[in-house]
């Protein structure tokens, strides 16, 4: 769900960026973070909580709360709300604490 029209801001579509979410191809735009691109694509659940495995989305969107941690290109615990989306990124829902590579 992208904003199409806005009285103050101009969101002209920028360059498309293709990436993978749990193996599926998804599209975002230049200027997106991983979390904003996923949200625009309808993905709100970014992870599972450590013990009760409850769904987790972002909460603060500015890199404070760590509610948006995902595995990106094999690296666990990436703050997806402040990490720029890049072409071909492999983004996955993280189960548990993640593994150190």
């Amino acid at each position, binding site marked *: *769900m992208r*904003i199409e029209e806005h009285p103050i801001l101009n969101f002209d579509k920028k360059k498309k960026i293709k990436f993978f979410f749990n193996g599926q191809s998804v599209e975002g735009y230049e200027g997106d973070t991983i979390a*904003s691109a996923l949200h*625009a694509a309808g993905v*709100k659940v970014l992870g599972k909580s450590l013990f009760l495995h409850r769904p987790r989305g*972002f909460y*603060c969107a500015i890199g404070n709360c760590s509610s948006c941690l995902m595995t990106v290109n094999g690296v666990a615990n990436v703050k997806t709300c402040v990490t720029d989306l890049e072409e071909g990124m492999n983004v996955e829902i993280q189960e548990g604490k993640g593994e150190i590579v």
Partner: protein
Amino acid sequence: MKQAELVIIGGGPAGLCAAVSAARSGAKVLIIERNKDLGGQLLKQTHMFFGSEKQYASLRGIDIPAILISELEKYKERVEIIKEATVVGVFEDGVITVLEKEENYFKIAPKALVLATGAYEKYLSFPNNDLPGIYGAGAVQTLMNVHGVKPGNKVLMVGAGNIGLIVSYQLMQAGVKVEAILDAAPKIGGYLVHASKVRRMGVPILTSHTVKEAIGKEELEKAVISQVDEKFSPIEGSEKTLDVDVMCISVGLTPLNELLAMRGCKMKYIPQLGGLVPLRNENYETSVENLFVAGDATGVEEASAAMVEGFLAGLCAAEKIGYRLDNFEEMKNDYLKQLEELRSGPAGKHILSGIEQIVL
């Protein structure tokens, strides 16, 4: 180890103004900013600011960083900026440790520090408050105004302070429906000018109301709200279920104070200022010599106050390490006067009752 004169932690409104002020005084300044861009939360403020011209009133927040950055460029020979870098430690010997781009870890020994780390959004306790779809109001503002993405279709705004009211209006500007704004207090906390604006657009503001629970399996699907009595206890039988896929929590901010506490600054819990804040003198120097603070980290207020505090702390920190402007006293008194004016309204009274408990 890198040597530095004045290190400013945080490149938001307070930090940028501290940098301008200190560099103008003649100090060499190093700004360390966590994000890619300077400006902090100004980058998502599409509304016009109040205050006076000196605090960039009647400009939109999003347009202020460029002004401050061009001001900084006047002194570029003594300004260094490190972005995408997080200060992870402030130690007793004055050394700070920095992690740049998640890979480059180094130490800096500055003569003085200005901490302008800002604040973060508070949570609210209710069953299922962790469901995706429940976001900080500021988070939704970032999603919309920075990234151009709608948070969902129907929003419940929890909190009728200025952030709650402003973000509600901005949600409507983005084409998103706001079902209701609620607040546990019997009165609207934010400015009436903001409240009237959203009311005119047909959004009900429900005072003496709270969220009883969120409902949803994987994501937020519904919210149950209820009226509260004068003791803020839910009134049985007054529950209503709203069909919303987004809930914004706008119940205030709390200072990002970890580095101050780590360094051993004397801290005090002051509800009027949003939480645990450092004690500080009139110059915004904490109980630790040469460690200054500015902005929301020293007590949550508006960006206008954060900017003036930044100018003041930068001026005084530079003076402390030997860069005293000829008109130092005049400048300092002007900043103090501006702060006094900004805090002269009814909201200011509340803030001042907190500040008087932390001034050394």
